[in-house]
């Protein structure tokens, strides 16, 4: 039995230990680390988008915009920090500390944007909100393109490559933990209530607008962190990496996993990141060099069809709103 005071932090401690072990075992394998990092970033993105799209039922299709804000804020901050160290610390520790600060800055910057985008949701619903988020994503891109300090169209390169398996997956773990704990608190219940019936939620004393904005803030924060992570393991970020297509990839993950299910989002993020990668190498190996190109050609159309088929055949997605850790509901379902 765990003492109640420790229940909050224990999983984080355990995760840190496990991840540190993972880092020792696999940290040297560049390609594995790269793919694992990509998966981790997508998990953070999907889980965070699920907070808005799944749990709260507000449809945001501009998640790449928040990711871009985070990536650029963190990257821009890290750029001049590549050659400095905090005194009294070993270089590696200092690097990781500065990295954490950059990530946090990215998250906060994105969260601020989340607040700004969340505000129109006070007045807008459904389709309109979706368009505003889309517009936001486009505006962010245009701004970056026109800002020389952010590298314009060329992008930012030379960001110190401080990302590691440990950092990425710790963030993924934290995002999942936060999503789960929010879901199991009165806040999460209020968010779900908004999704299910906004009028009734309001009538039950839920300040729907404030909750919606806060859902956007949390979601944007983690998207920003994901962007920050991304910026620290890819050598160059440019506006082309954060287009509407990227937003849609995340939407597909959330929808396929089941709107409202964190478990589903994680699973879909992992599968939809690894599958093209695996198919591509498989095609290359067995159908000759270059055959893997087919995978990239059909990926987007297949995603589109996947959305349509899912909505028609299984609108609740892979997991519906269920969670892996949801024991109570399972009991209730049995008569």
């Amino acid at each position, binding site marked *: 039995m765990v003492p109640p005071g420790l229940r909050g932090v224990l999983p984080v401690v355990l995760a840190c230990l496990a991840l540190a072990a993972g880092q020792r075992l696999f940290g040297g394998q560049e390609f594995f680390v790269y793919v694992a990092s990509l998966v981790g970033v997508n998990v953070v993105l999907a889980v965070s988008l699920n907070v808005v799209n799944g749990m709260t039922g507000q449809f945001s299709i501009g998640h790449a915009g928040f990711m871009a804000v985070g990536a650029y804020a963190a990257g821009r901050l890290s750029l001049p920090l590549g050659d400095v160290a905090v005194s*009294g610390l070993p270089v590696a520790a200092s690097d990781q500390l500065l990295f954490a600060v950059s990530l946090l800055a990215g998250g906060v910057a994105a969260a601020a944007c989340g607040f700004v985008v969340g505000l129109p949701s006070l007045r807008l619903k459904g389709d309109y909100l979706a368009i505003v988020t889309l517009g936001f994503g486009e505006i962010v891109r245009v701004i970056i393109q026109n800002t020389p300090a952010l590298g314009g169209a*060329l992008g930012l390169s030379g960001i110190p490559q401080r990302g590691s398996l440990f950092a990425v997956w710790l963030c993924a773990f934290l995002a999942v933990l936060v999503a789960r704990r929010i879901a199991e608190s009165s806040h999460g219940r209020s968010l779900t209530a908004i999704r299910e019936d906004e009028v009734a939620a309001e009538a039950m004393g839920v300040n729907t607008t404030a909750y919606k904005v806060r859902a956007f803030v949390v979601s944007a924060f983690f998207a920003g962190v994901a962007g920050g992570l991304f910026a620290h393991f890819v050598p*160059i970020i440019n506006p082309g990496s954060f287009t509407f297509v990227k937003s849609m990839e995340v939407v597909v993950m959330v929808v396929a996993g089941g709107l409202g299910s964190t478990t589903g989002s994680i699973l879909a993020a992992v599968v939809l990141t690894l599958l093209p990668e695996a198919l591509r190498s498989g095609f290359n190996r067995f159908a000759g060099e270059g055959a893997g190109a087919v995978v990239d050609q059909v990926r987007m159309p297949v995603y589109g069809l996947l959305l349509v088929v899912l909505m028609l055949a299984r609108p609740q997605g892979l997991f519906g709103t269920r969670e892996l850790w949801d024991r109570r509901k399972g009991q209730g379902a049995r008569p």
Partner: protein
Amino acid sequence: MRSLLPALLAAASLLAGCEKKQPAQAPAAPATPELKAPAAPPPASDVILLGEVGSLTGAEATFGQSTHEGIQLALEQANAAGGVNGKKLEVRVYDDQGKPEEAANAAVRLINQDKVKLILGEVASTNSLAMADKAQAAKVPMVSPSSTNEAVTQKGDYIFRVCFIDPFQGYAMAKFARETLKLQNVAVLQDNKSAYSTGLTGVFQLRFAEMGGKVAGVESYSKGDTDFRAQLTALKKAKPDGIYIPGYYTDVGLIARQAQELGLKAVLLGGDGWESEKLFELGGSAVDGSYYTNHYSPDSPNPATQAFISAYKAKHNGKVPDSLAALAYDAANVAVAALRKSKSLEGPDIRDALAQTKDFDGAAGKLTLDEKRNATKPAVVLKVENGKAVFAASVSP
């Protein structure tokens, strides 16, 4: 070099203070796990593996395909001529879908999994930049066939290219416009989404003004736009006698049509992004009489060029190679020559051999790699006439 972290940030991170990193502890690269250079040479085999990264899918797929064809032709010829010290050359290709992060990923795979000796690629500068970071860290030489952005080879001493750089291309057009066409007043319409375009704009503006011309105004569009009338109308006000459009052929054709429609009677000028058959289809008669700078002209009497063209045509059913294929062919040949000269197949030795490339007789002109690892070579200016680009002039550095 290393600098001091601002005190404000230090306070924010609740730490006593900051200091310079000890150079002894972390030399050039950050202290995170470093890419390991390919360690001991693999058991002696009779194959030398090279890596190639290109966009084989996506909007720039034709770039990647042309490049691949050029490289393949060069390696076939090299192998036919006995390979490198009796070893055959092979190339492993990865597709990056035109995305920088995928390009970096591909470079990492080539370096760590396939243990290639040298990397060829990419076309787009953004992607080359992403790869250059990885190649430099692993001390694997990289030769870009056609990335013209200045920043690419600045990534480090293992990064080379066989094409001229944007500053030269912008200069060449400025010189041609000013001295040959005697233009006074040139406006610029740049593609804001492309670093290539904004880079060329900067150089052209500077150089053209230096030569006594006047830049009448700069307007921008975004790649993929179809309506450029607003920008052109704004430019028209300045009554330019030339418009420099350093963009891609997909947009340039339309711009030419709309300029004609708006009654703009200026000569259109451009860069190597114009190079495509599609330019004539999209632009129709509106692009006739325009000029653009390029890496080579198939009309060039240079024997190396003609030899390449006939070999390429023989292999691809009479298709005339574009400049990307020619540059890729040169890149591969420069690499092969360096491998033959190199003392060993270790990164540093290959690098040194590459750096000594001098007066290399390439398909796209004679080239010398300078101390900044960029190719010094002339640019050609092509004129569009009746749906064909013909040689107009050559501009030497």
